[in-house]
Every structure is written in structure tokens, then in C-alpha cells.
């Protein structure tokens, strides 16, 4: 090994150590746990494929998967579209631009507890503004987060997550838009492009790598969604099966019911699903993402 390489290794050693201790070891250990029964306090016992078979045949897991897929279908495209529109509007020459950027970014830095409280008030059956509006329109009120219909509950929660996450995605896309050179826009204008054509033919292709990144990040965060469900559904011990999502199920099994093996198997199942979704998006990338 050359001397420089040796020093390089020494300097990166603390980071490698951290990687091994906090990432590689837990990653592999959790894989091992999927084949064991472990209550956290006593040594793990080998049970073979039992945990995998058990979680695949568990109704609650499939319900949670249905919910998170529905959540993703709402959340990913709507958040991306919303962020794209906001970024496009805020990239124009308008008065008070800095103020609007801040306003749309504010939910990102608002703590979940505070944001969740606001939305719970908006959704409140008796005092909420949404039901108040419905009442004014002579429509019957909706039980937004306590409905017996899972699709209303999960849909309402997806809206909250879009509100919270769109600002971050907007900043990423906005950064991409600001890289578009004035010359290119001017040239397009001289050729007669304006409005929608300018957006669809110039802006969108140029920011498509950013949009793609936002979609990948949104997909991962959708499958990871935990805080939003925790805050909106209230007591974690009282989440109905019809409103369950994988992360709450995993958390509950692992840390409340001390079933680390089963929880690890579910976590790995979820990991494989996210991997498949991301690979699928990667495959479709070539069709619409434009790199200069």
C-alpha cells in the first residue's frame, strides 16, 4: 500500500467504524433475527422460516401494505405535482417572492406534533373548519381521521403529509429551475413559445432529473411514513387494523410486544418492496428524465 493510501485509511477509519457499527452490523443482525424468536432480553432462538411464513399469512400485514400502497399512490404524484407548481410560480418575477418561499417551506421545519395538532383541529368532527364548510354547503360532515372507511382516513393523512413534505421537494425543484439559463428561455420565446409550451418543452425536461429525485425520495418516505400516522391516529396501541401501516405494525411488534424476530421479518419484507418500487422507477427513468 502506498503511504498516502495508508494515511487515507487511517483518516477514514472512524467513519468506516461508524458504518460497520451503526449500519452494516444492524443490517445483517436484523436479517439473522428474521430466522429467530427474540424477546430482547433472552438469547435469540433459531426458528427457521417461521417468522416469514407467519407474517406473509398475517391479515394485518396485508392490510397495512394495502394502506401504504394507497397512501403512496396519493402522496407521491400529488406531492411532486404540487412542489413542481409551487416551484414554477415562485421562480417567476413576483413581489414578495422570499416571503412566499418561506411560507411554503415553513411546514417542513414545523415539528410533527404541532403540525399534527393543527390538522387534527382542521379535521375535528365538531369544531373543524372542513366540516364547518361542508355544513355551510349543506353537505353532511365527514369523519376525517376516525371514519370507518379506511380510504378516507388514509387519504386525509396523505394530505397532511403532502402539506408537510411539499416545501422540501419544492426547494429541490426550484434549485433546478434556477439553473435554466435566460438565453435558452429567451431563444424559446423568440421562436414563439410561451406559457404552457415553455413549461412543458423547456422547464420540465430540464428539471426532470430533480423531479425524478423528488419522486424517488417521496417513494422511500411514503413507505417509511411513521410520524404522520403516529400523530394523526393518536394512541399507537389503539390503531385499528383497517388503518394500520407497516411501520407502526413493526414498531408495535418489536418494542411493545417484544417480538423482534417477526418484526425484523416484516421490516425486511418492506425493504424488498421499497427496493422493487425504486428499481421499477429506475427502469422507467430513461423514458422521461432528460440529462444534459
Amino acid at each position, binding site marked *: 500500500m502506498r503511504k498516502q493510501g495508508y494515511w487515507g485509511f487511517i483518516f477514514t477509519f472512524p467513519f468506516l467504524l461508524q458504518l460497520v457499527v451503526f449500519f452494516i452490523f444492524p443490517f445483517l443482525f436484523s436479517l439473522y433475527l428474521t430466522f429467530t424468536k427474540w424477546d*430482547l*432480553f433472552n438469547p435469540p432462538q433459531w426458528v427457521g422460516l417461521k417468522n416469514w411464513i407467519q407474517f406473509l399469512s398475517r391479515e394485518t400485514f396485508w392490510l397495512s401494505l394495502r394502506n401504504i400502497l394507497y397512501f403512496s399512490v396519493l402522496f407521491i404524484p400529488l406531492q411532486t405535482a404540487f412542489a413542481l407548481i409551487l416551484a414554477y410560480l415562485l421562480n417567476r418575477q413576483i413581489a414578495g417572492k422570499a416571503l412566499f418561499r418561506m411560507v411554503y417551506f415553513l411546514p417542513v421545519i414545523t415539528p410533527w406534533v404541532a403540525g399534527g395538532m393543527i390538522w387534527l383541529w382542521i379535521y375535528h368532527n*365538531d369544531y373543524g373548519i372542513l366540516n364547518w364548510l361542508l355544513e355551510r354547503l349543506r353537505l353532511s360532515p365527514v369523519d376525517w381521521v*376516525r371514519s*370507518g372507511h379506511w380510504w378516507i382516513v388514509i387519504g386525509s393523512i396523505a394530505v397532511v403529509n403532502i402539506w408537510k413534505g411539499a416545501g422540501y421537494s419544492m426547494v429541490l425543484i426550484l434549485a433546478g429551475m434556477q439553473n435554466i439559463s435566460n438565453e435558452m428561455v429567451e431563444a424559446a420565446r423568440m421562436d414563439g413559445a410561451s406559457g404552457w409550451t415553455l413549461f412543458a418543452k423547456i422547464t420540465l425536461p430540464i428539471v426532470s432529473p430533480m423531479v425524478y429525485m423528488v419522486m424517488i425520495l417521496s417513494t422511500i418516505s411514503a413507505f417509511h411514513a411513521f410520524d404522520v400516522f403516529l400523530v394523526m391516529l393518536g*394512541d399507537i396501541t*389503539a390503531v385499528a387494523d383497517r388503518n394500520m401501516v407497516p411501520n407502526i405494525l413493526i414498531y408495535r411488534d418489536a418494542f*411493545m410486544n*417484544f417480538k423482534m424476530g417477526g418484526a425484523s421479518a416484516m421490516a425486511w419484507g418492506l425493504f424488498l418492496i421499497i427496493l422493487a418500487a425504486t428499481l421499477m422507477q429506475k427502469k422507467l427513468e430513461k423514458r422521461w428524465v432528460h440529462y444534459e
Partner: protein
Amino acid sequence: MKALKIAFTSILIALSVAACSTNQTENKPSGGNAPNTDNPPPKEVELKIGLPGGYDITSKKIIDGFQAKYPNIKLEIEEAPWADFTTKIITRIAGNNPPDIWFQENAVILGYGARGVAENLEPYIKRDLKTEDYAEALFSARTADGKVYGIPHGINAGALAYNKTIFQENKIPFPTDDWTYQDMIDTAKKLTKDTDGDGKPDIYGFQTGNNITLGWLPWMKAAGGSALDASLTKAAFTDPKSIEGLTYWADTINKLKISPSRELAKTGKFFENGKAAMVFLQYSSQVPINKNNPDMDWDTVKMPVGFNGSRFVPMVVNEWMIYSKAKPEAKEAAWTFLNYYLSDEAQTFLSESGASLPVKKTALEAVEKMTFKPGNKKAYTEGIKEAGGTLDENPTWNEWRAAANPILDDIMDGKRSPEEGAKEIQQKVQAILDENQ
């Protein structure tokens, strides 16, 4: 000279006997054989005590009193809000780094006992305590095989609290200890009023609880049902009496409309704000009520007599447990702490704090004479003696409760009928009980 020799030899023999006896005491293994706490070892010991809820729950006077009495035991106190403590403690145990002694809910402690985390305190109790000096609740953490995994931090019982002003304004006599659930419902109907004419009640006669302690379980027991059978291994939700109790419970909101709904109750403290005339109230709740609403005129009577003619007083008993893998000397020190905790002095400090009712009978009697509200503390103390019962607790209590809770919420919200809901709960709870047999 001879006399001097005899005296010298006697002193030597006396010293050797003393030395031997000291060695015998010190060499006793902890755990199986309880240590002798009459003569605490003079050597310094470190004891890590976990205080969930900090000094709001564990009176500082107890800690200071213990420290003054046992200066050789150096306390390392770890206090945290209850929720943070209970979240962290699991990973701390998994990492073999929890405090030597702390307290949690009885059911959690039973679960820790089943997993070998909590020390069996039965030998210690047998050796050092006169059990007849304590309320039966001392043994709330006893399992079927006789092991005892915790010492009560205190008893938090339920009673029927009522707002005197609302009763007086409506010229209705106050509740009594002889009241039945039916009396309570009938009176609540009279007290529920829409004062501003918007079609919605502004004062409710009763506020129904949604949890196991003050909500659905007392109603099920009032009809003669229960969550689990006596062996705590079979679910009893589909027992017709249990369903009957659930029906009475949900009807208070959905049919009789004498109670605010679950969602409404979440956003307003109805009893505290004088918007509900009656509520089932745990003993510890008087601390925030007396602090935040000192002028409110209220009192308590015993939990009403059930529809089946018998009374049930729900009790939450949090327990102190000793970590089974703590060092032997730390276990000894922890038991010394518990022994002090159960002494007259510490039990009096506990009573004065108002956070919980003591388990020592003498201190329990003294509570009745205390002057803070509620005036009638016998509703709790005598209620416990007459009909105190824990909440069908077993090592899987948290797990089966989590399975039942969302369905019970649906029943309370009127989204599902008690019969239909009970059927589903029965299936889920029984599966959990079977899996953990």
C-alpha cells in the same frame, strides 16, 4: 494474672464469634435468600434508581428520607417523564444497562417477570415483612406459581366523583355509596342540559371513560362479565354478561346521549371545567384538579353497585421491581430501599403527596383524615377494602389490550355493535393468549 488471662480469652472468643456471624450474614446469596436488612452493610454501595415521572410521582421526601437513613447507599437517580422512561427502558434492558430498581405498570412488571428481567421478591417479603400490616394489593404482582415480581408503588383506585354545584343547581340530592349504575344513569339523564338551545348538550350528566381502568372494564364487571376468565388464559369478551356491560357503556354516548363522545372528550376536560356532573375518577387525578381548579366544589362516593348487585373498584397498581441481573450488593440495597418505602415514615410521605394511596394499613387509615379534596376519601380506601380489583392483568396484558382497544373505540363511537365487536376482540385476544401459553 489468671483473671486477666480468662478475660482476654473471653474477649477473643467473643470477637471471633462476632466475626463469624458477620461473615455468615455477608456471604448469604441474594435473590434466593433474602438479605438481612436489620443490619445494613456499612460498606458503600451504589444504587441506580429509575424514577418515571420524577418527583411528581415519587415524593422527594422519600428519597431524601432514605438517603438520610442509609448514607452508605449512594443513590444515582435517573428521572424522566413517564412516557420517555417507558420507551427507553426496553432498550436499556436489552443493552443490560437499566437502573437497579424502578417502577412501571403491574402488567408490564408481570411481563418482565415472565421474561426473567424482574427479580422474584417473594423470599425477601417472606423474610422481612409482616404481610398482615399491608393491604391485599401488596401482592398484586404475584403469579400463579407464587412468585412476586414487584412491590406496589401505591394504589390508584377509582371512585365516582361528582360536581356538587351542578347537583345543587338542579336540586338533585348528591350520590351515595349505595347508588347503583342504574341510579347513576337515571340521574345523569336529569343533569344533561342544552343551556344555549343549539340542540347540543352543554352540560353532560356523566363522562364515560374510553380506557380499561375507568371505561369499558368497570361496565363489563358491573354486568357480571370480564375481559378474561379467572385463570387469565381465556378471553371472556363474548360472554353475554360482558356484551351486556359493553352495551350499557356505549349506550351512555350513542343512545342515551348523557356523555360527551370520545372525540369531544379528547378536546375538553369536561369534569374539571364543570361541564360534566359525574365521572369515574382515579385517586391521583385529584392532584391536577385541586391544583388547576381549587375552587371547584366536588366530592366522591364509592364506585356504584353493578347491575348484577356487586361492586367492582378498579385499581391500578404500579410496582417497583428490582432488575434480576443487577449486582448482588445493588439488589440488597434495592431491597433496603423497598423496605424503607414500605415503612410508616415513607408511606406517610406517599400519602401526603396525594399521588397514590399507600399499601400500609396504618398509612391508609391516616389518608382518610387528610383535608384536601375530595372530602370523602373513604370512597377510595373503603372501596378498595370492599371490592378492589386489578384489571385482568397477565404478562400479555399490553398486547391483548392493544388488539382489543381499536375495536372497543369503534364500539364506543357507535361504528360497530357490541356483539359484533366482542366477537372480533374475542378471536384476537384468544389468539394472543394461546400464542403465549
